[in-house]
């Protein structure tokens, strides 16, 4: 408890004094406290400040909260380490530091919240501070658009949470987290929670803010937002899901939403050539995977299969942690790449592995972890989820079993596509020849240290997973042995192959020397997949040609545009926004008139009131 308090205080101090050291200290303290806490089975419940009677800031930390706090604090520590150097490029450094501190603090306090009031209070604070952070490079048009979009979506999520908390209050008569236990059916409550947290988590179809907001913000902030902020939404969903009387269809809904998000997330990621946008879509994918775990948990609990339910929950939680680690790692490395190349388009990068070998290695580790390749941590959590799905027969309900099997195959598709996507990302950014003239350099050591810690965590959590997961009762393959043997034999063969090498230019099919224009591009790389999934992308080609002659035989110049459909934007977001604007303009015509009209309103209102009191009262 004291450690937590010290951590919070230090974070607060960091915000006020704009001190980077205090941030680091705070993260360490809280991570330590949460870590200690996780090993002991106890709960802290305390009210630390009362604004007015009935409204108080309270903390309620149990193991679930501690787990998320550990995730947040650990990732924040590494990100802060990275930021020490990274933020020097920005004009208003002090502001960035304090906002970042407020942001981290509000995330931690949201998770630690002891009543719904504090939860929403810090939730909103988190939304507000992250909005400012997204808007940090506000002179860019796209950033402003992104910020606006993000803001409206977070407000929408708050709206649903407000409804949910209000319902909770009316059902239980309490705002205190520990006292909320609900017996009655609460469909609306669940839906409100699902949508509210779904928006923040970036579940399709509420995902659209992620690929806008993440590229727009500074990379350390993207790392925090994508790595941990969306996990706070996962925490919220879990926290309330555990105290509600879950029904089967809730589980199916969560599972379905998760599957769709996972698959569409990665499919959209494949066509994305903005490196940070690509990572943002992968966040959607991974959140989808986490949601699948949660959905399975509900389904297995409903069918009373506690072992599998626990396994799915473990998969969800473990993947939460893992995703926090490797996604922040990827964003941080991508941040350095974007910073030095001054572009986010991966088609303009290439060959960076020579200038920044460490960054490349770290990115590769992150890419392998996120693609679910052994022996990294992403593989272990996906393995748990796969195992849970493989045991679908335990539910003894044919329809549900088939649903689970379909989800299983889609999950497999997702993870394979993710691997394809990261081959593309890594290959285009770091390998082959540079596609544009760049002057780049390797990241400085604090940045590398921050990234390195995350990468180390990815490796350790993967290889040593049997140590802590088998103790919980899961039979995982012996990752330590596999990893060790793998490393050993790779080294062996590498040493074997090292001798007798010669360097020579790549054969250019007879051309004298190879140019970057001959290289495969990111668009080219993903083209076969785009063709196969053309129903989803709905690619459209607009060709316009100009001719020299009337019979249109000699082409003077031509222009081809290639569009992919933005389904959710075109069919969901824009219509709603347009409808709101139409209503608004209709209503606003009320105020476009002269005084006579305004007096006429008074007249009409008076007549209506006269009728109301005279005849109906």
């Amino acid at each position: 408890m004291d450690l937590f308090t010290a951590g919070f205080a230090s974070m607060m101090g960091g915000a006020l004094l704009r001190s980077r050291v205090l941030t680091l200290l705070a993260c360490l303290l809280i991570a330590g406290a949460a870590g200690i806490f996780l090993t002991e089975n106890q709960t802290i419940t305390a009210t630390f400040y009362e604004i007015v009677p009935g409204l108080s800031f309270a903390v309620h930390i149990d193991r679930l909260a501690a787990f998320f706090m550990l995730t947040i604090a650990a990732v924040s520590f590494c990100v802060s380490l990275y930021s020490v150097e990274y933020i020097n490029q920005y004009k208003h450094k002090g502001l960035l530091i304090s906002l970042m501190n407020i942001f981290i603090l509000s995330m931690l306090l949201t998770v630690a919240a002891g009543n719904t009031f504090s939860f929403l209070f810090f939730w909103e604070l988190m939304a507000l501070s992250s909005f400012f952070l997204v808007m940090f490079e506000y002179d860019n048009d796209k950033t402003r658009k992104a910020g606006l979009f993000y803001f409206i979506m977070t407000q929408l999520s708050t709206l649903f949470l407000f409804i949910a908390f209000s319902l909770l209050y009316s059902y239980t008569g309490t705002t205190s987290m520990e006292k909320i236990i609900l017996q009655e059916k609460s469909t609306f409550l669940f839906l409100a929670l699902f949508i509210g947290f779904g928006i923040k988590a970036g579940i399709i179809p509420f995902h659209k803010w992620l690929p806008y907001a993440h590229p727009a913000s500074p990379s350390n902030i993207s790392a925090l937002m994508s790595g941990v902020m969306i996990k706070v939404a996962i925490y919220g969903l879990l926290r309330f899901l555990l105290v509600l009387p879950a029904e089967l269809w809730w589980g199916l809904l969560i599972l379905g939403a998760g599957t769709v998000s996972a698959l569409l997330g990665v499919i959209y990621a494949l066509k994305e050539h903005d490196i940070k946008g690509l990572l943002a879509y992968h966040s959607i994918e991974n959140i989808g995977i986490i949601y699948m775990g949660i959905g399975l948990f509900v389904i297995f609990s409903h069918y009373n299969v506690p072992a599998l339910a626990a396994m799915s929950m473990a998969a969800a939680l473990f993947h939460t942690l893992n995703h926090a680690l490797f996604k922040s790692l990827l964003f941080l490395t991508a941040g350095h790449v974007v910073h030095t190349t001054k572009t986010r388009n991966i088609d303009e990068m290439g060959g960076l592995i020579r200038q920044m070998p460490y960054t490349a290695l770290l990115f590769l580790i992150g890419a392998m972890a996120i693609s679910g390749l052994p022996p990294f941590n992403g593989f272990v959590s996906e393995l748990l989820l796969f195992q849970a799905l493989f045991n679908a027969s335990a539910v003894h309900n044919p329809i549900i079993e088939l649903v689970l099997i379909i989800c299983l195959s889609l999950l497999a598709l997702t993870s394979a596509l993710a691997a394809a996507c990261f081959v593309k990302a890594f290959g285009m950014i770091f390998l082959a020849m540079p596609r544009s003239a760049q002057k780049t350099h390797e990241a400085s050591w604090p940045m590398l240290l921050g990234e390195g810690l995350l990468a180390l965590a990815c490796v350790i959590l993967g290889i040593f997973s049997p140590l802590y997961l088998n103790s919980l009762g899961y039979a995982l393959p012996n990752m330590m042995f596999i990893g060790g043997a793998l490393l050993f034999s790779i080294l062996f063969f590498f040493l074997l192959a090292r001798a007798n090498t010669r360097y020579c230019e790549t054969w250019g099919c007879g051309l004298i020397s190879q140019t970057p224009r001959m290289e495969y591009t990111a668009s080219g790389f993903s083209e076969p997949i785009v063709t196969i999934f053309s129903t989803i992308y709905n690619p459209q080609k607009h060709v316009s040609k100009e001719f020299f002659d009337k019979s249109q035989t000699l082409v003077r110049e031509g222009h081809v545009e290639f569009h992919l459909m933005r389904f959710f934007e075109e069919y969901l977001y824009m219509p709603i926004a347009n409808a709101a604007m139409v209503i608004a303009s209709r209503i606003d015509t009320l105020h476009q008139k002269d005084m006579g009209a305004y007096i006429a309103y008074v007249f009409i209102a008076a007549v209506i009131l006269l009728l109301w009191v005279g005849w109906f009262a």
Partner: protein
Amino acid sequence: MIALLNILVAVLISPLFMTFIKKVKAWAQRRQGPPLLQGYYTFMKLLKKETVLSTNSSWIMRWAAPINLAVMIIAALFIPIVGIGGSGNILLFLYLLALAKFFMALAGLDAGSTFGGMGSSREMTISAVIEPVTVIVFAALAYVLGTMDIHRMALAVLANGPQAALVLISMSLFIILIVETARVPVDNPETHLELTMVHEAMILEQSGKNLAFMELAHAIKQTLLMGLLMSVLFPYGLATETTLVALVFGIGAFIVKGLCISFFVGLFESSMAKSRLFLLPNLFMLAYFFSFLTILFEVFA
């Protein structure tokens, strides 16, 4: 002990199967074909040659081949080749193959050659589309045999005798084998510098020892997938105990079974034409359908 033997046999026998398929195809074309030990000769020759690396390439290129070979050797732990022994989580096996593929695709991109990029792109596309099929096939296996361990699966088949469902699954497994080993109609292993190739394009920039390792890894992969297919379809002959007789019998049985499958693969390849890349999902859908059908039977039965 058995596990080590499994690895050893898999590594040693793989080039033979590779060449045997070529031989069968040659026979089908009324040619004489290469000598049966051609695979080994090529391997030895490549080991002696110098490695030529592109100036554009990075350490990815140098590490890709060792990683590939190492992964395949580790993956051999998971499959009962000669006998049953060791652990064999089927998903870990699958993801080890994915790991190898990941690096192979990266190596394809590393040199900056157009062919390599094209190969990687196609390889990753195909592997993405085949992945749900593979998983569903494995899920069907797990469903039917009640375990996720490949060694236990073989044991279960040995104990319970062949089942109708397994035949269906085997057909799917065969399709996976074709896809994963880059054979007609998915890929054409015979061509070089053709726009139809996938796997060969990716390893185009490899040379010397690296190429030897890559080829060997590919051959081992084929052997492992054959082993998987056999342990499900016809596990008889696998050594269940570490006696010399059992082991020798196991090795013999494996060679015979492997040659049979190779023969069949050769015939299959000869009777097919290379299919268009974008028609491949149809083939995969077929495998998906078989396995789904199996599960359907299991679920409703």
